[in-house]
């Protein structure tokens, strides 16, 4: 199948301040809420455009997006491509973005009403910041896994506040300066499943851009509810990790040496913030997920070596 593009309310040669990049794949359950939260922004509509990349969905994601978008007055482009991976999808947004900034929204996310306004204000004031991201809303989980995930996000958000120096803040919900992103040559298209954020943040820090967390902007995220889905997510991160370790040999491995220490620190922070006893399960959860990561990593490694042979 060849690529299809859908444009809504297109304005030729218009300059926007913000491009909202929404890269989705099989997200029909949450896409409705995500797009509505974008439409409800209090940011001026003439200054923002929406670019949706549907990366080879097989469910009703694309029709849902189109029917929602056709009723709005925001300038929108919807790309429907066959699956090429998250790196290529994000590059597609970058190539077509007319804005000065790109806000990345993922499928399972919702953003608060003032999210874009606050992030843009922050970026306009701090010219040396390349990436900024808000904070994740806490406790929208019902099962123990989603509670642990959200506790973990909470702890991490508080541990790596303001100027984030040696931690990956992730792409979903982050605002990127297009100028900075173009300087490093966009995303790596080989990172098809995960890890494209880590790669970009690495390169940006090298070029001297700062990465910040903005505490006042809040977004919501759908955490995995079952252990199996969390497990699969981490296997996916392992896939990306394999490529990254080859790319930056060794530097990243350092992060996985002190998994248990990480878990304990996060648990302490989460307990201090919420007084929930579940927080002490975090170290175990952490090490469990890193096993999944390792399995994902080894899978690629073994597949590579066998094909090589």
């Amino acid at each position, binding site marked *: *199948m*060849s*690529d*299809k*593009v*859908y*444009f*809504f*309310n*297109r304005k*030729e040669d218009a300059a926007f301040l913000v491009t909202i990049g929404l890269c989705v794949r099989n997200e029909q359950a949450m896409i409705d809420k995500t797009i509505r939260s974008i439409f409800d922004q209090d940011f001026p509509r003439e200054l923002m455009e929406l670019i949706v990349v549907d990366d080879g969905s097989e469910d009703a994601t*694309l*029709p849902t997006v*189109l*029917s929602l978008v*056709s009723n709005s007055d925001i300038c929108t482009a919807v790309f*429907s491509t066959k699956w090429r991976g998250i790196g290529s999808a994000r590059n597609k947004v970058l190539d077509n973005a007319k804005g000065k900034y790109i806000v990345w929204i993922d499928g399972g996310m919702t953003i608060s009403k003032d999210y874009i306004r606050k992030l843009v204000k922050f970026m306009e004031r701090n010219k040396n910041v390349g990436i900024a991201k808000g904070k994740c809303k806490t406790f929208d989980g019902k099962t123990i896994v989603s509670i642990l995930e959200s506790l973990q996000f909470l702890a991490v958000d508080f541990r790596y506040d303001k100027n984030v120096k040696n931690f990956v803040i992730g792409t979903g919900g982050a605002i990127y300066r297009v100028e900075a992103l173009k300087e490093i040559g966009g995303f790596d298209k080989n990172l098809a499943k995960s890890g494209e954020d880590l790669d970009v943040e690495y390169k940006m820090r090298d070029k001297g851009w700062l990465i910040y967390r903005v505490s006042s902007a809040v977004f919501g995220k759908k955490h995995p509810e079952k252990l199996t889905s969390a497990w699969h997510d981490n296997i996916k991160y392992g896939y990306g990790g394999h490529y990254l370790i080859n790319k930056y040999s060794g530097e990243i491995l350092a992060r996985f040496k002190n998994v248990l220490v990480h878990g304990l620190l996060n648990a302490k922070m989460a307990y201090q913030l919420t007084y929930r006893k579940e927080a002490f399960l975090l170290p175990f959860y952490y090490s469990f997920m890193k096993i999944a990561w390792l399995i994902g990593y080894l899978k690629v490694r073994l597949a590579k070596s066998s094909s090589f042979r």
Partner: protein
Amino acid sequence: MIIMKLKVSIGICARNCESFIKETINSIAAQDYPHNLMELIFVDDGSEDKTLEIVQNCLSQIDISSKVFHTPWKGLGHARNIVVTHAKGKYILWIDGDMIISKNYVSRLIDFMEKNPRIGIAKGKQALKIGSSLLATLEAYSRAAGRMLDYLSPKARYKSLGTGGAIYRKEIFEKIGKFDENLKGYGEDSDIEIRAKNAGFLLTTVNVNFSDFERHGLTWKNLWEKYWLRGYYGYYFFHKHKSLLKHYRMIPPAAFLAGIYASFKLYRLTGLKAVFLIPFLNIFKTTAWYIGFLTRELKKVSVSKQSRIRDIHLCKKLFI
């Protein structure tokens, strides 16, 4: 390695045509021309029905790369300009949302255009097919008869080919500019054809068939509305090209005589006796056209009258 360059951009400008669009897109997907040399640009000019949904569904099944634009209603001229802006092919083929083209349509037209570099605009011929009702058949026949002439002869100077089904050389738009966006419903084709002719391009028809929306059947009401709208939007066109103003062609008695001429031609071709009703059909159509035209003319008068009254009020306020 030979890099295949995109040859033709197919532009579909449609509005509220949920019942026809599927057939149209399928007839494009069935073309025998290589699909990787075609691109499809669909402009949905403010549809309020399910057109967009159906288009999305159809496009997901075909392997022609496509772009779809959805805008609030701004008129046909604007919609066609979107296609011109985004077309990357050497040619632009215009298809209407209710047309069906025969399987070799694209390949024949492109073949013809490649061989005749002086031709700027070419179009296929309307198929002489019996429609689902007598009225539909007659309408299709009379439209076909209207285009049965040699467009290269000087006699056909003011005859319009129409945009639906026509292939345009992209360089036309580089030379003479784009469509006139004030021509919202009708007349954008005649306007650009006149400008193309003045720039030295030739127009002609090619012997390959398409069929228009009449195949779906037609009611008297549809026909009336269609020609009323043509008259209504034709108003701007007639005022733009004052030298080409040919009111007498649209006067019902003149149309009757033209109808008689056309019906003899059609009878010789098809042997259908019903074609002798075409003169009467022409009277009906041109009446609708004139009423539409006059409605627009009167509206302008009433607007100017209103403004005059407002001026008088203003004067009164100022001076008394």
